[in-house]
């Protein structure tokens, strides 16, 4: 129990610290890297909850794919740091005040015993988290699962509609025309006099 708590607080501390660092560092690339750390430590905490599949997915999908792509975008973009920073110092006191007041209020409310639900029994070592999730997703939760799929489809449609410009002047190959070209179109035999 003690080890579990120690591990939990260790990762939680890193998580909170890197989340704070993420929103306060000057360099956007560093901010992205701190976000990666946030995801990574969250995954570690999920592991503690015996949610191995979700933890691994979080690392694979978010850290491995999404954040790397995001890092590329941040590096490609020419972000004016001074402009983004403008007003940070001005709004900081108000934001800090609101944040602290909210945090204290939440702490006061949630410090009483609120979550009195029973802790689920620890599962044996050969228990397959992935299989259970899969079974639930495709039976009991099939309806929300499909709807989530539709949301992803809409996200794809939206992204493509908003970003794809059909350039009429762009030069591109037409494989069909290339294949159907015959000799008459390409070669012209000209008979010339000898010189």
């Amino acid at each position: 129990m003690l080890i579990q708590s120690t591990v939990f607080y260790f990762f939680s501390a890193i998580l909170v610290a890197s989340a704070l660092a993420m929103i306060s560092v000057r360099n956007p690339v560093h901010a992205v890297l701190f976000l990666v750390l946030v995801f990574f430590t969250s995954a570690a905490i999920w592991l503690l909850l015996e949610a191995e599949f979700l933890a691994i997915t979080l690392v694979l999908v978010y850290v491995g794919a999404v954040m790397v792509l995001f890092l590329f975008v941040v590096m490609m973009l020419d972000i004016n740091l001074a402009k983004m920073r403008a007003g940070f110092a001005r709004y900081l006191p108000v934001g800090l005040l609101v944040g602290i007041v909210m945090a204290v209020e939440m702490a006061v409310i949630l410090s009483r015993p609120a979550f009195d639900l029973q802790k689920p029994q620890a599962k044996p070592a050969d228990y397959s988290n992935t299989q259970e999730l899969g079974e639930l997703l495709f039976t009991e939760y099939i309806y929300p699962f499909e709807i989530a799929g539709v949301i992803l489809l809409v996200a794809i449609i939206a992204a493509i509609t908003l970003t794809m410009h059909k350039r009429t002047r762009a030069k591109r190959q037409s494989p069909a025309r290339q294949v159907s070209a015959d000799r008459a179109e390409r070669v012209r035999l000209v008979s010339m006099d000898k010189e």
Partner: protein
Amino acid sequence: MESLNADVLMALPEVFMLAAASVVLLIGLYTGRASETLAYVLSLAALITTAVLVYSTSASSESFAFGGMYLNDPLAQAIKLFACVTVAAVLMYARPYLQQRARISAEFYALGLFATLGTLVMASAHNFVLIYLGLELLSLCLYALVAFVRDSRDASEAAIKYFVLGAIASGMLLYGMSIMYGLTGSLDLAGINAYLAQSGANRIALVFALAFIVVGLAFKFGAVPFHMWVPDVYQGAPTAITLFIATMPKLAAFVMAIRLLNYGLQELLADWQQMLMVLTVLSVVFGNVIAIAQTNIKRMLAYSAISHIGFILLGILPGTDFGYAAALFYTVIYVLMAAGTFGVLILLGDREREMDRLVDLKGLAKTSPWFALIMMVLMFSMAGVPLTVGFYAKLYVLQSLVYDGWLSVAVLAVVMSVVGAFYYLRVVKYMYFDEADDVFQVQPSGLAQAVLSVNGLLVVALFIFPNALLNYCVQVLG
């Protein structure tokens, strides 16, 4: 396996809508811009067919599917029917507008249908997960639609604001839902209600979760003080898209509020009543007062929408069946009025000019008397003047408040309605008593104009027969 088939049969409207939206999308993909007409006709057919499917599923009582996640009851049926009809009308209005600007494609219709699917899902949701997923599906389509006209700076700005604030709202809602889940151990609305009923729970923590849920709800409704996105989005979005945002999502927001507050959190009635009271009073007051200062008609209608949202929430406030019915009645009537008003603005504008300043309406009675007449009827209806159905909508909400003893709130709402009448009547004054600055010819555009006429006549006809709709609303929420 057999039970799954029964479940799918029950959710047939949703399944059909998903298939239809995908077909429309594929048509756009393979036939390009030329098939816009085909996509349009198919979308209308899909909406009508879905409405018929909804109507044909018997929902005389509550019936569940997918392990209690999907609920089919008269309320779900009513919201789905209204949503399908509304979206069909919106497409008919929006088409000439977008065509004139040569920006329409099959994706527009596909996104519209997916947004409708989101509303269908929300209408039948009996589980936090599904409420959230339906909401996200709807919102995501709306964000994309606002940015649909890519070369407009205003539209892009509006889309970003809408997206960021919408994401914050979703975050709030999810945070509240997750705490509620942690407290009650259930995502199912009935399960939550059962847990709350057997009491012994930590009340402060429950109210804490409730606060976040109500904040998320208020954000999506656009109630003061969570209204900042409404004026900017209404003004920045192309008028056809504003029309979409102003109408159908209000039905979705209403059903979400009823499901969350009445089905799931009924036991916390006393707590959410206090929160709703603050929201309603602020919305009715600020919406009406700030609208007076607007010179842009879309922005004015946005603040007017905020005050109407206040009225819808006033109906929910007492927590009585009649109050809910009055709120549903108000929502439907508001959707009708908003569709008509933005429809007039759409039809009056053309490629060169957008009708978005109030002064653009000057002298409209001379240039196109029929449009001016419809607009006048709609403005009177929004103000709640008798001879239009807007009067009954306000009356029923106020009745439900007075029955339950919320006298002071009702009086305040009446006073603010009178204040609101000022800016509605100013529009009428511009149209009928001022000379036009420049002469312009309104392009006739067959179908949309016919829809607008029906829309305007309904506002008057429902004043004569309000009981037909009211009885339906009472029966649905009884």
